[in-house]
C-alpha cells in the first residue's frame, strides 16, 4: 500500500508532480494507493500494472476528472464527493464515488462501471458510448442528475435510482436525453418532458434481470444495501430509449391544410369568391390579356376575290400564321368572314402583326370583375 498525502509542510503538490509520483510507483509494481488529494486532476487513469494485477485507489478530495481514461483492472473509490468529469472517457475502470459528483459524470464513458452514491451534475452521461467489441459502459446513480443529462448518448446503460429526491422533482433535471440515439436510461422517479426522439417504456424481462444482478453490487459498493427491497420494486421503474419509430413530424401539404383547416371557401368569399385554380402565363378565353378583333375598315365585308384597298384581301396570312390555329375563314352570303375562336386564341397578336391591311387589331380584354367569369 502506497500512502500519499499531497499536502505536507503547508505545501500542496502539483497535479503533475502527484501523477508522476503515482506513475513511478506503478512502474515499480505498487498496486494499492491511498491518496489524500488536494484537488489534483486525473487521478486514477490511464494506468496499468505490467503483470496485469489490479490497481486499487482510495482517494479523498480529488480534483476534476477522477478516473478519467481509466483502464480495466483499475478500481477507484472516492471517499466523499468528486467534482466534474468523473470517469471521463472511462475505458474499463470501476469507479465508485461515495458522495455527489459534479457536472458531466460519465461523459463519453465507453466501458467500465461508475457508481455514484449521491447526485450527479448537469450533462451527466452525455455522449456515453458503446464499443461493439466490449461490454456496455454502466453509470449507476443513487439519487438524481442535473439538467441536460444523457445528451447525445450513443450507448451503454445508466441507472438513476431516484432515492432521496423530492417526489415533485424530476430525477433527470430539465431537458434530458436530447439527441440520444443509443443506450438505455433506467429511471425510478419523475421524468420531465422528453424530446420526441426518445420514448419511455416499461421494463422487460431482460431489463429486470440486468437490474436484479446489478443492484446488489451497486448498493454494496455505496453502502446502501438496505435499499435493495425498495429498489427491487420493478414496477416503479421505467426506461428511456431512442424512439425507433421516430420520424420527424410530417406536415400536411399546404393544399390539404387549406382544404381541411383553413377558413372554408377562403377569406374573401363574401366579396370576391375564388376557387383558387391558377393559370399559366399564357391564358385563353376570358383570361387573355388582349383579344384580336377582325374588322373590315370599309365597313363592308369583302366579296370573294374582290380585292379592295383597306379591306381584307382574303390572303389568309393571319390564319396561316396563327400559332394556335384559332382563325377560321368562312364564306357567308358570298362574303368572307374571319373569326378568332376565343377558346383557342391566346391573344398574341400575330394575326395583327402579319395582316397587310391592318384589318386585325388587338384590344384590351374586357375587365373581368370576378375570378371566374
Amino acid at each position, binding site marked *: 500500500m502506497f500512502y500519499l498525502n499531497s499536502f505536507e509542510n503547508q505545501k500542496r503538490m502539483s497535479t503533475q508532480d502527484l501523477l508522476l509520483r503515482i506513475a513511478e510507483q506503478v512502474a515499480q509494481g505498487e498496486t494499492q494507493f491511498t491518496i489524500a488529494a488536494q484537488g489534483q486532476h486525473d487521478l486514477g487513469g490511464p494506468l496499468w500494472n505490467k503483470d496485469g494485477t489490479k490497481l486499487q485507489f482510495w482517494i479523498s478530495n480529488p480534483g476534476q476528472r477522477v478516473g478519467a481514461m481509466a483502464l480495466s483492472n483499475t478500481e477507484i473509490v472516492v471517499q466523499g464527493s468528486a467534482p466534474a468529469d468523473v470517469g471521463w472517457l472511462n475505458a474499463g475502470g470501476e469507479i465508485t464515488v461515495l458522495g455527489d459528483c459534479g457536472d458531466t459524470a460519465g461523459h463519453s464513458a465507453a466501458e467500465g462501471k461508475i457508481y455514484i452514491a449521491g447526485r450527479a451534475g448537469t450533462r451527466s452521461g452525455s455522449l456515453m458510448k458503446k464499443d461493439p467489441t466490449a461490454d456496455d459502459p454502466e453509470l449507476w446513480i443513487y439519487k438524481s442528475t442535473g439538467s441536460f443529462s444523457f445528451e447525445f448518448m450513443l450507448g451503454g446503460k445508466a441507472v438513476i435510482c431516484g432515492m432521496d429526491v423530492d417526489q415533485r422533482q424530476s430525477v433527470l433535471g430539465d431537458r434530458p436525453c436530447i*439527441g440520444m440515439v443509443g443506450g438505455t436510461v433506467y429511471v425510478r422517479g419523475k421524468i420531465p418532458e422528453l424530446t420526441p426522439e426518445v420514448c419511455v417504456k416499461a421494463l422487460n424481462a431482460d431489463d429486470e434481470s440486468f437490474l436484479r444482478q446489478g443492484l446488489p453490487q451497486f448498493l454494496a459498493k455505496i453502502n446502501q444495501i438496505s435499499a435493495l427491497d425498495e429498489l427491487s420494486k420493478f414496477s416503479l421503474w421505467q426506461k428511456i430509449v431512442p424512439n425507433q419509430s421516430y420520424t420527424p413530424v410530417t406536415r400536411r401539404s399546404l393544399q390539404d391544410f387549406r382544404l381541411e383547416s383553413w377558413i372554408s371557401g377562403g*377569406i*374573401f368569399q363574401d366579396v370576391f369568391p375564388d376557387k383558387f385554380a*391558377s393559370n399559366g402565363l399564357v*391564358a385563353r378565353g376570358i383570361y387573355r390579356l388582349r383579344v384580336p378583333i377582325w374588322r373590315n375598315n370599309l365597313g363592308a365585308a369583302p366579296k370573294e376575290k374582290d380585292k379592295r384597298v383597306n379591306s381584307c384581301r382574303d390572303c389568309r396570312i393571319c390564319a396561316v400564321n396563327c400559332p394556335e390555329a384559332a382563325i377560321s375563314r368562312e364564306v357567308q352570303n358570298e362574303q368572307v368572314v374571319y373569326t378568332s375562336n376565343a377558346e383557342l386564341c391566346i391573344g398574341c397578336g*400575330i394575326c395583327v402583326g402579319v395582316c397587310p391591311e391592318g384589318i386585325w387589331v388587338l384590344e384590351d380584354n374586357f375587365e373581368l370583375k370576378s375570378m371566374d367569369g
Partner: protein
Amino acid sequence: METVTTQDITVNDLDFIIHYNPDICIMCGSCVAQCSFNAIEVAPQVRKHEPTQEGAKQGHKKKILFVIRQKTDLAHACVGCGMCVKVCPNQALSIEANPESRKNLLARTQGVIKRGGRASSYSLRTLDKIMVGRISQMTDPALDSERHTFDLRAPLGRILKAQDLPLKVDGQSLSLEKNCPPVRWIYPLLFSDMSIGAISTRAWEAIALACAYLNEECHLPVRMCSGEGGMPLKLLKSEQLKYMLLQIGSGHFGWNRIIKSLPLMRTDPAGIIIKIGQGAKPGDGGLLPKKKVAPHIQAIRGVPETALHSPPTHQGLYSIEESVQKMHLSLNAAFGFRVPVVIKCAASLTSVAVYNNLLRDPYHISGGFFLDGLQGGTGAACEISLEHTGHPIVSKLRDCYLTSVAQGLQGQIPLWVGGGVGLTGQAAADCFKLICLGANGVFVGKILLQLLGCVGDEHGRCNQCNTGKCPTGICTQDPRLIKRLDIDRGAEAIVNYVLTFDSELKKLLAPIGNSSLPVGRSDALITSDYAVAQKLGIAYAC
C-alpha cells in the same frame, strides 16, 4: 424609310433592352400574349433577300420576315420582369439592363414618376459590414443548433418591471390586483403590413394561410399584420384572428367593418398597430391608384371607386404626447385593454424623441415601437420620396435601444424593426444582428412577395406594383393576373423559407451560447468598418 430624329425615343433610351434571336423563334406568340405591360409586339421586318439562281427575279431584292419587336414609347417600355423569357420555349429572348438608359430623365417630362418596390439609390447596408465575431469555443458553452432546444419568442406588449406588476399574495397563490398590460410572446419574425388592395386578395390570403400553417403545423407563433386596407370579414369572425395584428393607418380604411365586427369576434386579435409612417417613403402618404380599387376593395375598405390617398400623417394628432395618449388609449379601450397596441413609425432623425416619449408612458398602454427603415418596400410611392427620403434602420435602432438602456428602461417597450430585412435573401442573419443590437424582433414584407414570385428588386427590375399590371398576380386586383398566382405553392414557399430562417437563426444563436434571443448582445458582433464600430459601440476588427 421613316425619318428618325435625335429626339425620338428608341430602344437604347429605355431601361431594358430585349435581345431576340429570330433564327430560333418559332413564332408561338407566347411572349407577346402574356406581357402584361404590352411592351412587345409582332411586326414585319424587312430583310435583304439573296435570290437563288433559278428563283432570281429582277427587282425582288427584299423579303419580309415577322419578328418579335420591343415597343419604344415610354408608356409601353419594357420593365424587365422577364416573364417573356420564362415563357419562351426556345430561349429566343433575353433581357439586358441598359446602363445608358435615359428613361429616368425622359419619364419626368411626363410628370412625377410613381412606382413600387424599394429604393435603388441607397444600396449600402450596414448589416453586411457586421459579422458575428464572438463564437464560444473555449469560453462559454456553445449549443448544438440542431439538437438543443431553443426558445425563440419575442414580446409584443408593454413589459412591466417585476416590482410594478399589479400582483398581490392571495393565500397560497398570486392574483392580479388590477388589469395588467397584455403581452404576447410571438415569433421574432413578423409578416408585416401589406394592405388588401395594395396586394391581391390571393397574395394576401397566401400570406395569411402561410401564417396559420406555421402556427398549426409547425408550432411557430408567427403573426401577420393586416396592413392599412382593412380586414376580410370572414377572418375577423374566425379563430384565426388570433394570428393577426390589425393596422390603423392615417386613412383609417376598413375600420368601420372592424368596429362593427367587434361583437362577432370569437377571439382577440394578436395586436393593434398604429401606423404613423412607412420607412420606404416617410412623409409620403399611402397611395392606392384607382385601377386597383376594384369593387371588392371598395367593399373591404369601405370606400367609393376612386384613387385612395392616406394622408401623410394622422390628422387628429398634433404631437407625440397626443399620439400616445389619444391613439393608444382609444385602441386599448376598443379591445378592453386586453390587446397590445403598438405604434409604427418610419425611422427618422427624431425617432429617439418618440421612443423616449413612449418609454415615459405612465399609463402602460404602449405595447411596442416599430421602426421602419428606408430600405423597406412599398406598393406605390412617388419615386422622389422613395429614393431620397428615409433613414437607415441600424443606427436608429441602436440609438433607441441605448437611450432606453441609459434610463434603465430597456425591454419595457419592445423594439421591432424592419425595412430591408432579408434584402440579400438571408433574413436570419439580418434578424440576428438587429436583435444583438437591441431589437426584440423584426418584420418583413417585400421578401414575402418575392417568395410568392415577385421579381421586383432594388436594381429597378419591374417595381410596377402601382400600375395594376403586376405580372405575377401579386400587386394587382385584375382577376386575369391574380389567376397566375398559385396560392398553395406561394404559401408553401413562405412556410419553407420561415422554417429555414428558424434553422439558420439557431445556427447563429448556438455558437454564442444563447438558447433564447440575444437581445442587446452587441458583444457578439464585430465590424471592420471603424466608423460603424464607433457609431454602434461594437468591436472593431480587422
